[in-house]
């Protein structure tokens, strides 16, 4: 279903950028003066923020919490990670 594949694409983007940042972080821990790595980290931090914002604006929070105007703890409504995994396999 189109909505699902968009959701998969957006969540995948968040995962990709988060992973890239973790890797760059590990490198920077031992190479703190490396300017290329620093620029890479800044770039993907921004991209991650955008990817998260886009996902959240359409599908709700990525971490437990309450959004503006929520009158319900929507966190329990979203698909659980293992359900997302199932959808990912179906897409």
């Amino acid at each position, binding site marked *: 279903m189109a909505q699902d594949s968009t959701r998969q694409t957006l969540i*995948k983007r968040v*995962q*990709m*950028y988060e*992973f*890239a940042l973790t*890797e*760059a972080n590990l*490198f920077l821990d*031992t*190479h703190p003066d*490396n300017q*290329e*790595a620093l620029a*890479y980290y800044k770039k*993907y931090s921004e991209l991650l923020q955008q990817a998260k914002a886009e996902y959240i604006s359409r599908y709700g929070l990525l971490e437990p919490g309450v959004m503006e105007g929520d009158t319900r703890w929507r966190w329990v409504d979203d698909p659980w990670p293992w359900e997302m995994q199932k959808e990912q396999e179906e897409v």
Partner: protein
Amino acid sequence: MLFQPCNNDTSNGCAVFTDQPISLAMAYVARQEWQDLYETGLGLSRGTIFAQLDKPFEREGTTTDGTR
């Protein structure tokens, strides 16, 4: 063989993974450079963004020439 004699006579044998001189009986990790990055999507699926660190264990281990 992990160590092999180098062509330049100054060192007492270099590791196959690095041209940096290595002494005996001391552990050594070669210094990684920021290079050969995977695109983020590939990085996520390979489990690293650094092509040089993408060394899946293939039964007998990484190849002896140190490229994989």
